[in-house]
Every structure is written in C-alpha cells, then in structure tokens.
C-alpha cells in the first residue's frame, strides 16, 4: 500500500466517523426518566403547596429538573393524539399536579383508576395554577 492510499483511507475513515457522530448527536433520543436518578423525590401535595406559596422559589428548585412524585390519582385523560395525562391530587379545589406521560405510552394506556396511588418520574415544566410535569414515566 502506498502512503497515499493509507492517507486517503484514514481520511475517509475519519470522515465516516464524523458523519456518524453528527447523526448520533442530531438524532439523539430523549432521555428516559426511568433510567435516571431523580434530583428530587416529593409528594404531589407538597410540590403543589410549595408552588402555591412561592412560585419563584419553587421554580428555582424544580423547573427543568427530573423529579419523582408520588400521589393519588384523581383523574386520567387521553387526548385525540393518544397522549395520556395523570391528574394527581394537590389537596386543592381547582388545581392538580398534572403528569403528562411520555409518548411511549401512546400505544398502551396504563391501567389505572381513580384513587390509585402512583409514583411517576418526569421533568417539571413549572406552574400555572396546576403544576405540570412533562414526559413522565410510571415507576410504580
């Protein structure tokens, strides 16, 4: 093999690797909450209480963070796109901690009923009265 062939193969190999890495990064999948360690473990009622007493403080702690929440299922809804949300009790007349499930649950709506105790993990999106947790997975 001539020096030129070696150089050329090395160059092509590097190029292929670069392209592969680019596609891997560009198409990297969403993180699965089930595989990660939650930054906070908290009851739904406690999370809601903290948000309603001081939203800015609660945001500083939880916004964008992966948290594990336990609570009582008050209501469940599945929209026309097949995305299911669990409304956990917040001990409030109007509001809930709403856990929007990850799209992996589109194929299979979880078998839960009102009053069930559930434990979910997801990313806290903040509060507008209700506290919204996004891309949740059911742990228990």
């Amino acid at each position, binding site marked *: 093999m001539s020096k030129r062939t070696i150089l050329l193969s090395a160059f092509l190999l590097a190029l292929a690797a670069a392209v592969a890495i680019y596609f891997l*990064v*560009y*198409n*990297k*999948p*969403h*993180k699965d909450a089930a595989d990660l360690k939650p930054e906070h473990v908290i009851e739904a009622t406690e999370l809601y209480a903290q948000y309603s007493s001081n939203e800015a403080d609660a*945001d500083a702690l939880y*916004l*964008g963070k992966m948290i594990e929440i336990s609570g009582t299922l008050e209501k469940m*809804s599945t*929209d026309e*796109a097949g*995305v299911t*949300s669990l409304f956990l009790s917040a001990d409030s007349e109007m509001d809930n901690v*709403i856990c*929007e499930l990850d*799209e992996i649950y589109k194929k299979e709506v979880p078998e839960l009923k009102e009053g069930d105790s559930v434990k979910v993990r997801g*990313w*806290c*999106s*903040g*509060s*507008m*009265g*209700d506290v*919204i947790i*996004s*891309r949740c997975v059911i742990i228990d």
Partner: protein
Amino acid sequence: MKNLIVVLLIAFIAPTLSAQSKYFTKEGKISFSSDAPMEKIEAHNRKANSVLDPASGKMEWSVLVKAFQFDKALMQEHFNENYMESDKFPKAVFKGVVQQHDKIDWTKDGAHNVKVKGTLEIHGVTKDVVADGKITIKGGSISAQSDLTIAVSDYEIKIPAVVKDNIAKTVKIDIKADYAPLVK
C-alpha cells in the same frame, strides 16, 4: 302558582346565567411549526390554560414553555436553552378580546369567524397581535381555534449566524381549545 313562577323564572334566567359564566380549559393545544430549508421543526404543547369570558369577550392563554414537546431531543434542548431561555422566561401569555363579541349569540349553536386582538408575551417581550380565528358553540360548550404567524425577531429571539439559514424567520402557531363552563 308560586312554584310555577319560580320554574318559569329559572327557565328564563338559566340560559342567560350560563351565558354569563366563564369558560376555561387546562388542556388547550398549541403547536408550532417552521419550515426551514434543512428540516421541518414542529412542537406540541397540550397543557395550555385558557379562559374565555363571553360577556366581555376577553380571552386569555398561558402556556409553559418547557412543556413543548419535540420529536428530537436536541431541538427541544436548543429551543429551551438557546432560543426561548425558558429558565428565565418559563411562560408565554396572550391576553386579548374577541372583536364584536356582542354580535355572537353565545347561547345558540353556531360557528363564527372572529378576530381576536391582544398582546402576546414571549421570551419576556410583549407585542400587539391580531389573530383570525373561529369560535364554535355546540350544545353548551365552546371551542376556539386559530392560527397566526409571528416573526422570531419581534420577540428578541436570537438565531446564531451559523444556523441562520437553517431556521425560518417566521413561525406558524396553531391554537385549539375545547372550553367547559367554569364551575366555582
């Protein structure tokens, strides 16, 4: 006789009362898409709050920026961290009034093309907007839908020069709400 009067009174007052109450949803849908040369960017938010007051025509929307879901994790990251800075500005809010709302009979089934005028706050910047939309009244519930196009630069969202050509300068926003009467 007295009972009859009460019944008649209720029969006449009840529909007007329901027209006076506010309507709301916790599961309004907001999606946006932007056709870039490289690839279509699309995201959905299924947890928008909206309140509609037929009596005054007032309509309000608020949405959590972090609750927008993208197919690609990287896009969602860039959207939150680089463009919307959602740690600093977690919400987007629209406050407006349905124009000529008094011409709509909110107690009767029907579909109405409307203009909604108001202010839209995104990324900490508030701008006046007018949106064309449709309000549908059916069996005591109200639904609303609209689409509008906004310019990214209006909201001081900076697009780095490197990716400038890959990201469209305008974004189309689709909005949909199925309202239920607000029972207090």
